[in-house]
């Protein structure tokens, strides 16, 4: 590897787009050592001797949050050959503050001046050339989302880069202290990669990570001298250093950015906000958006596509497979395994791909547009009541797609306790895999009010999550961190990136259908057709034995058949396997399953079964992720036991109520 380039920038500056453009598919995702913050690396596509390391999106190197600490520690310890700093041209002032910190460091920097189009639309004309001259490093104007400026950037990255000569003028007492510190470091023969001036300012700012780093490195004599200088420095260095940087940037902007938007100017993003965050309309609008998302998924788009796919699979595909196997002279049991086992199992799951893809598409749209940040603001007041903040709402919404990324997203939260509580309650967010069970059952049992029942299920999940958080508040007090939520201007999401993301999720789902569900289907088919006496009828098979063994647990809930028992066990592997299992145990094609279910469940039992599916023990992947993110077996096991108990109680109540109203 010729060089390592660190990609650094503020949140919302377009870092992800740039990383994706530069590395394409050649990226690896891991964790930073010791913490659960994601670490992405990738070879640059057309510069294959360069490794790009994606640092977390941060506002500064102040080492206040986990991400800032991490980035600072990385820059100090690993010292990359070059920093690629992405800067939002439409929000230059704050973005440049971080740039200045990087430039002062003395490592070669290249600046990608992103979102030139957004800046232009807001009436800000940034002079890239002049900025380049004043900062003393290459500045490449870009529109990363449209891959514009990529050629120039690549050309620049392939050349030998150089450190900036920028020197921010600090007030006299600070400059004096910096000079003294530089002298001490030089006399102590300290050879560190970053410039002595940067080291001195970090020391004067009392940067926690830097303090720890330098204490481990220097001998006590030198440290004592440095401590002395810091003590004697007049004024408040941490304020004056920051103030001087911002003052310098303000002057710079006067030169390079023509026509800055007046502070009171109302652009269209503000107009949307005045509606979306409106005193009375804000929350109803949010609920309406959610309702539209569910309608798209369950009524308008997802379900109708699913139905068509279903007809296709249970018709031509099933028939074709059967006649092909017969033509190939395959043994009868194998034909039945493939058609009744594998195709019934995998097919029952595949038909839900359109619904799941629709849901992911809608959620990514809301996320990319900038609306999710508004949701965090809208919901903060409510989340506070359960000891969390508005930010925690975002992982919970993602949970509607899949609980695994939801628990992963809790990494973005500041406080460890907030992360724990959010991870613990996210499995109650009804994921899209559970949706496959709802769709099957509501279609089979309820002619009217299908959407209402599904909506009630989702709502129950939310209520249980809220109550759980409320309960946990008294045991695990989440400390009050600073709630900072940036509201980036709205932007139209890129159709291409939305489709790519959705395709990715759908592919993951199909892959799971091809592996876990394929395997489970084969296993189930064998278990369902054999007993200790060899080939047997299904209700005398191993499967019936196992299912029958646990079935009594569910008798008070209205479904004590061995078939229901088996599907709940297999549902622990992955929730979508429940449907596949039912396809096999009731020996049904997708089209006949509904009718068979109506014989096996009463409507009240079906309703109770749905509530049980909603709440019971999350799937294996979620449990594994829970262990990984909470780092605690205690909490993981508690989550398993707790959700099972809650599911049992709620399903019991639902069943009894349904019997009353039946």
């Amino acid at each position, binding site marked *: 590897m010729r060089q390592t380039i660190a990609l650094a920038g503020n949140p919302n500056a377009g870092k992800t787009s740039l990383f994706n453009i530069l590395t394409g598919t050649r990226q690896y995702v891991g964790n930073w050592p010791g913490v659960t913050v994601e670490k992405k690396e990738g070879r640059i596509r057309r510069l294959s001797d360069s490794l790009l390391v994606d640092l977390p999106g941060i*506002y*500064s190197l*102040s080492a*206040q*949050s986990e991400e800032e600490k991490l980035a600072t520690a990385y820059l100090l310890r690993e010292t990359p050959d070059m920093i690629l700093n992405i800067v939002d041209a439409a*929000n*230059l*002032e*704050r973005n440049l*503050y971080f740039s200045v910190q990087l430039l002062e460091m003395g490592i070669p920097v290249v600046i990608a001046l992103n979102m030139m189009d957004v800046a232009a639309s807001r009436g800000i004309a940034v002079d890239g050339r002049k900025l380049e001259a004043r900062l003393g490093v290459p500045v490449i104007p870009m529109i990363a989302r449209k891959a514009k400026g990529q050629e120039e950037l690549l050309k620049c990255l392939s050349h030998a880069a150089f450190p900036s000569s920028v020197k921010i003028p600090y007030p006299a007492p600070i400059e004096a202290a910096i000079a003294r510190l530089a002298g001490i470091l030089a006399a102590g023969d300290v050879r560190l990669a970053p410039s002595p001036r940067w080291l001195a300012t970090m020391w004067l*700012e009392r940067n926690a990570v830097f303090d720890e780093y330098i204490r481990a490195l220097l001998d006590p004599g030198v440290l004592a001298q440095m401590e002395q200088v810091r003590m004697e420095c007049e004024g408040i260095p*941490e*304020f004056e250093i*920051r*103030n001087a940087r*911002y003052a310098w940037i303000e002057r710079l902007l006067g030169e390079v950015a023509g026509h*800055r*938007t007046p*502070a*009171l100017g109302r652009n269209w993003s*503000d107009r949307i*906000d*005045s509606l979306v*965050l*409106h*005193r*009375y309309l*804000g*929350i109803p609008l949010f609920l309406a958006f959610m309702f539209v998302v569910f309608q798209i998924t369950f009524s308008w788009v997802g379900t109708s596509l699913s139905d068509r796919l279903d007809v296709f699979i249970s018709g031509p595909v099933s028939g074709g497979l059967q006649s092909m196997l017969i033509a190939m002279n395959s043994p009868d049991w194998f034909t039945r395994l493939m058609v009744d086992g594998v195709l019934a199992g995998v097919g029952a799951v595949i038909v839900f791909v359109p619904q799941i893809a629709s849901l992911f598409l809608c959620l990514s749209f809301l996320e990319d547009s900038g609306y999710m940040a508004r949701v*965090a*603001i*809208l919901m*903060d*007041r409510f989340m*506070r009541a359960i000891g969390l903040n*508005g930010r925690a709402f975002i992982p919970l919404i993602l949970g509607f797609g899949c609980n695994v990324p939801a628990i992963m997203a809790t990494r973005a939260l500041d406080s460890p306790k907030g992360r724990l509580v959010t991870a613990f309650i996210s499995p109650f967010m009804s994921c899209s895999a559970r949706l496959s069970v709802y769709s099957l059952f509501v279609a089979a049992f309820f002619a009217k009010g299908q959407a209402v029942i599904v909506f009630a299920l989702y709502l129950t999940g939310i209520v249980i999550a809220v109550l759980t958080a409320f309960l946990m508040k008294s045991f695990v007090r989440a400390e*009050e961190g*600073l*709630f*900072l*939520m*940036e*509201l*980036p201007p709205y932007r139209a999401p890129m159709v291409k990136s939305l489709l790519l993301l959705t395709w990715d999720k759908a592919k993951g789902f199909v892959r799971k259908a091809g592996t876990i569900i394929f395997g489970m289907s084969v296993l189930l088919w064998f278990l369902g057709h054999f007993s200790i006496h060899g080939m047997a009828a299904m209700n005398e098979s191993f499967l019936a034995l196992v299912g029958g063994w646990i079935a009594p647990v569910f008798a008070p809930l209205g479904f004590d058949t061995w078939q229901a028992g088996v599907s709940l066990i297999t549902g622990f592997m992955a929730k979508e396997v429940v449907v596949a299992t039912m396809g096999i145990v009731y020996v049904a094609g997708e089209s006949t399953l509904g009718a068979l279910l109506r014989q096996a469940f009463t409507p009240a039992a079906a309703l109770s079964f749905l509530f049980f599916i909603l709440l019971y023990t999350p799937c294996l992947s979620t449990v594994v992720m829970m262990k990984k993110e909470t780092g605690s077996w205690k909490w993981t096991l508690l989550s398993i036991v707790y959700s099972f108990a809650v599911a049992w109680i709620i399903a019991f109540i639902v069943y009894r109520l349904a019997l009353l109203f039946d």
Partner: protein
Amino acid sequence: MRLSEYAVGKKARITRLSMTDANRKRLMDLGLLPGTEVEVVRKAPLGDPIVVRFRGYQMGFRLSEASHIEIVAVP
């Protein structure tokens, strides 16, 4: 005067950040320093958090945090 009590749509200047060291540093990194001009853009439906604009971008703050930010009105 405190930022938490300030009216929507009017400009003010920060005079003091009276909070913990760590939080003060964080706000200063974001460009919210004594002397910075700010404007309360809007309030969330229940009046909390508030959205504040400074240095050309918008950030949400809780009232409990904004009450530690002291300001003077800018004519």
